[in-house]
């Protein structure tokens, strides 16, 4: 694998301008002071309770996502291009979803193959012909970005269902400001704290027509045992809306109400952090105790807005991903600003043959997998694992895509042996309301803490960093 581009020291060790001040500061700061702050940060995270639960472990083992105190810095110029690309891509995703559930022009034009849509479990036939308020399907998108050199950002994944991580973007910043006020004073860092405000106005803007002028927004969580529960309660608190569970809601005459100490109160917009499968046992999984019976019929009647809409998973499917540049061109008539990582679709015979021949060099991902589960990282895998994967691929080629192992960019990171480069990615959050599309300048930088590792997922031991967009 080629030497990775380092965001501080470039490819050739030449300090990049955005990092000049940080580099000076690092030179002045003794390593044990950094270590001290790191320990302090961990204590803060633990006390505030910023944890996530790992499935399959007892509730008492809420884990901290390791936090790295060295910020990742992106210049204002780089960001504006990234931002334009994110907005463009999200706009196209929303048009694509509307089209798939209405006229299906894109299928007739042969840009995306039919079976990829209709045989996909994330496609929701219930949504056929169903209008959603203001044609917004993906109100909150978390688009994963990686970088391989000074000039190029690649989209790694479009998260269009219930993307998480934004609480870390906000909390990381709070903690950094508490621990390193001097470092902030030496930079002009674009603030991220407006995110909750923007999210709330985004959600209010998409209220259904039958809502009052002051629409009631609530956040639907699967409950305190969910791995992202901290984020749910954090956001509800910042938004100033009720954090509801399925059992708090009741549907009457196709309207959704929450049970309060003063009786039933209508809900107009539900920011739901519960997957389609679980939201309504009458329509989807009948065994779901987390959802609200009748929610879908209220939705169909146009009396509640669900954010994100039902059926958005079809757009963030990893197989659909490979068509995203064509999707952008089809709807917007523009060249995509952000590139896709080159992707082989194992469902296509030619691609499959190539992938099978080059398994040792590729990353193979399950089309429906998430969180780093079920992937093959060719260069890091044993012969036996590769062979086992080869069988899986042959058995079910349409279940997989493959990508080259990118030399993901690295950032200086605190490790047991001092500062060292570690691979990072970035998840910015794109908010689409009835009129505006917004990206708060920042995002969640995830960092692979193991030397050489490319796996940044929190469920796989990755950590996070504060992400600074310089306001230039």
């Amino acid at each position, binding site marked *: 694998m080629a030497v990775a581009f380092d965001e501080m020291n470039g490819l050739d060790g030449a300090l990049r301008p955005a990092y000049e001040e940080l580099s000076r500061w690092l030179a002045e700061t003794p390593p044990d002071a950094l270590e001290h702050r790191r320990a302090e940060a961990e204590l803060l995270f633990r006390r*505030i*309770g910023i944890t996530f639960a790992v499935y399959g472990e007892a509730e008492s083992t809420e884990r901290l996502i390791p936090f790295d105190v060295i910020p990742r810095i992106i210049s204002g110029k780089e960001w504006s291009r990234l931002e334009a690309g994110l907005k463009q891509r999200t706009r196209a995703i929303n048009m694509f979803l509307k089209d798939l559930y209405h006229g299906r022009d894109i299928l007739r034009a042969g840009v995306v193959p039919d079976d990829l849509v209709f045989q996909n479990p994330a496609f929701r036939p219930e949504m056929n012909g169903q209008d959603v308020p203001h044609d917004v399907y993906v109100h909150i998108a978390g688009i994963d970005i990686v970088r391989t050199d000074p000039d190029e950002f690649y989209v790694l994944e479009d998260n269009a269902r219930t993307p998480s991580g934004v609480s870390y973007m906000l909390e990381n910043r709070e903690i950094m400001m508490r621990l390193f006020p001097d470092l902030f004073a030496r930079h002009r860092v674009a603030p991220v704290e407006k995110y909750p405000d923007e999210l709330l106005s985004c959600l209010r803007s998409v209220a259904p027509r039958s809502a009052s002028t002051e629409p009631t927004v609530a956040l639907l969580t699967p409950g305190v045992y969910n791995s992202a529960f901290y984020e749910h309660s954090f956001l*509800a*608190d910042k938004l100033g809306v*009720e954090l509801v569970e399925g059992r708090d809601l009741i549907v009457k005459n196709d309207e959704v109400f929450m*049970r309060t*100490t003063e009786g039933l109160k209508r809900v107009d917009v539900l920011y739901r952090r519960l997957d389609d499968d679980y939201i309504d046992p009458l329509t989807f999984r009948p065994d779901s105790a987390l959802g609200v019976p009748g929610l879908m019929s209220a939705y169909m009647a146009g009396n509640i807005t669900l954010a994100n809409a039902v059926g958005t998973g079809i757009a963030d499917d990893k197989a659909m991903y490979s068509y995203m540049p064509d999707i952008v061109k089809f709807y917007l008539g523009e060249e995509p600003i952000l590139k896709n990582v080159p992707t082989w679709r194992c469902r296509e015979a030619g691609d499959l043959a190539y992938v099978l021949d080059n398994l040792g060099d590729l990353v193979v991902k399950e089309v429906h997998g998430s969180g780093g589960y079920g992937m093959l990282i060719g260069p890091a895998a044993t012969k036996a694992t590769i062979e086992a994967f080869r069988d899986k691929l042959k058995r079910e080629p349409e279940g997989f895509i493959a990508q080259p192992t990118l030399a993901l960019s690295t950032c200086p990171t605190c490790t047991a042996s001092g500062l060292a480069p570690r691979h990072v990615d970035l998840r910015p959050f794109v908010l689409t309301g009835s009129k505006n599309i917004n990206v708060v300048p920042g995002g969640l930088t995830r960092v692979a803490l193991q030397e050489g590792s490319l796996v940044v997922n929190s469920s796989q031991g990755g950590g996070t960093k504060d992400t600074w967009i310089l306001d230039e």
Partner: protein
Amino acid sequence: MLSRTAENLYWLARYIERAEYLARTIEATLRVTALPSAYVGQTNEWDSALQTAGMNFGFHAKQEIADEESVVEYIAFAPDNPSSIRNCIEAARLNARSVRTALTGEMWDTINGAWLELQSVWSNGTKSREQLARFLRFVQETSLRFDGSAYRTMLRNDAYWFSRLGLHLERADNTARILDVKYHLLLPQDEHVGGPLDYYQWTSILRSVSALTAYHWVYRETLKPWLIADLLILNDTLPRSLASCYGNLVRNLDQIGVAYGRQGAAQRHARGIRNRLEHSHIDDIFQRGLHEFIQEFIADNNRLGEIIGKQYLI
């Protein structure tokens, strides 16, 4: 406010209050059992501790002999005792976590910090009396901090009032339970009152509800059983007395009623109990039967819990 939020706040306050009461019960029992046996007599104080904690059935379903080690373990730490101090703190933290948005940062910090300490410092119980004393202090301080941070930082709205309802309902139950178990000690039946045996038992009652000093300030007399009963039942200047708890319950329910523009069965029921306490005299209570009076009160208090549940929490 969501009904579930109100319910969680209510139970959160109850669990913390209960944890503190249990810690006080253990502490008071330890003091009595530390006395030479001549002062204590033949009674098993640990059995009595289980009774005041309402845990005697649960305990004896598992074990025969109630001695210091087994009872302390059961009340303080037993994972299979749903009301053990450890389980109270765990349950409180779980409630707190699911309604974090309704808590202030200070309250969350207290309860989460206590939970973390429980896991890191107290996960293996206690091995010595010194450790046990530290643990009991930790529990009481947690309760004080939690109560204090609620008092100092919460908005005075329904979230606050519902959590206060939980606290006072639990507190009234705890005080009544002590009286119920020890009522025979308070009965002025023979002339031996004031003997060392009774004296230390009475002290332990007062210590359990943190009212020993208060007694002397109020009555300026040596310990007399009917005055102890008067203090714990009717004196509304003592925060843990039944009268004081009901003054607060009525006040908080009224505040909820005003804020919501509606009164109901809970307000009426609480007012009824308060009025009875207000118009009672300790002599009449003894005349009619202390035991019967307390039993009736406990039932009434439980009933209020049910009514509040029906009116607001379901």
